[in-house]
């Protein structure tokens, strides 16, 4: 049996998304394909697979990532979906799942990648807000027409949406920073 579930997770909800996929697995629904907001499941053995979301620091098709994915495949980890630089990985739960050898190191690497992602995304969003404002300013100089009104509306929309996402990143970003500090403290006592 197959089913498709439409569900939106924002970037800052990646832990929730991972938990949800593993919960679905426990109920016997195995993810077979994932794109933004769309998940395809197939019914199978409950808890057969464990899922993990990973953020790549380069595009999926880059040479480094191709070799990384090949490496993962050799160790029994397969990629079932992608959404820009986020990839959906799964491996057999019986093979030990994704338990990292060095949890502290793993957590730190993961957090830093996410921080970098937030940084670049924020820059893009701020640029978008600036462009939208420029657009509005230019349109103010022109006489009203359908096209001018449309562009004004468009710029306002983009501006508002980008501002919202930029602000929404802040609490998430602070949480990541707190976690990085706590993880670094761990390093004083354990490998």
């Amino acid at each position, binding site marked *: 049996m197959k089913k498709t579930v439409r569900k939106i997770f924002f970037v800052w909800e990646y832990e929730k998304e991972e938990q949800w996929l593993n919960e679905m697995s426990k109920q016997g629904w195995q993810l077979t394909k994932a794109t933004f907001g769309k998940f395809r499941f197939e019914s199978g053995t409950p808890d057969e697979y464990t899922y993990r979301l990973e953020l790549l620091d380069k595009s999926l098709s880059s040479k480094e990532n191709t070799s990384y994915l090949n490496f*993962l495949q*050799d*160790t029994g980890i397969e990629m079932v979906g992608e959404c820009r630089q986020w990839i959906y990985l799964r491996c057999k739960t019986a093979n030990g799942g*994704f338990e*990292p*050898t*060095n949890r502290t190191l*793993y957590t730190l690497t993961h957090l830093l990648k996410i921080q970098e992602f937030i940084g670049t995304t924020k820059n893009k969003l701020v640029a978008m807000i600036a462009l939208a404002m420029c657009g509005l300013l230019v349109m103010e100089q022109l006489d009203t027409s359908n096209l001018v009104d449309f562009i004004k509306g468009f710029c306002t929309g983009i501006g508002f949406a980008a501002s919202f996402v930029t602000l929404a990143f802040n609490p998430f970003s602070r949480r990541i920073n707190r976690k990085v500090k706590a993880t670094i403290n761990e390093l004083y006592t354990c*490998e």
Partner: protein
Amino acid sequence: MNKNENVVLTEAVFYILLALYSPLHGYGIMQETERMTGGRLKLSAGTLYGAISTMLEKNWIEAVSSDEESRRKEYRITGLGKVVVKTELVRLEELVDNGKKRIE
């Protein structure tokens, strides 16, 4: 001694270097490490990949050339890698000696 050689190795790196005294590919390293430690140390794919990349850069290990084009790369320890292992072993012996002396 080069500063690169005078380091404290992580447990994972120490075992990967030991495993690579004979050429192995990624999955082989995982199996060999698990065998050596009686199942205690299971290397995760992410850790192994990161460790291999770093050790290739440091020239502690090398890709076995005959297999260069194949998807499954094999690696082996270099002369420098062996020096690193021996240096680490001396440090570990000191650690064990001191530990035993104190608690016995």
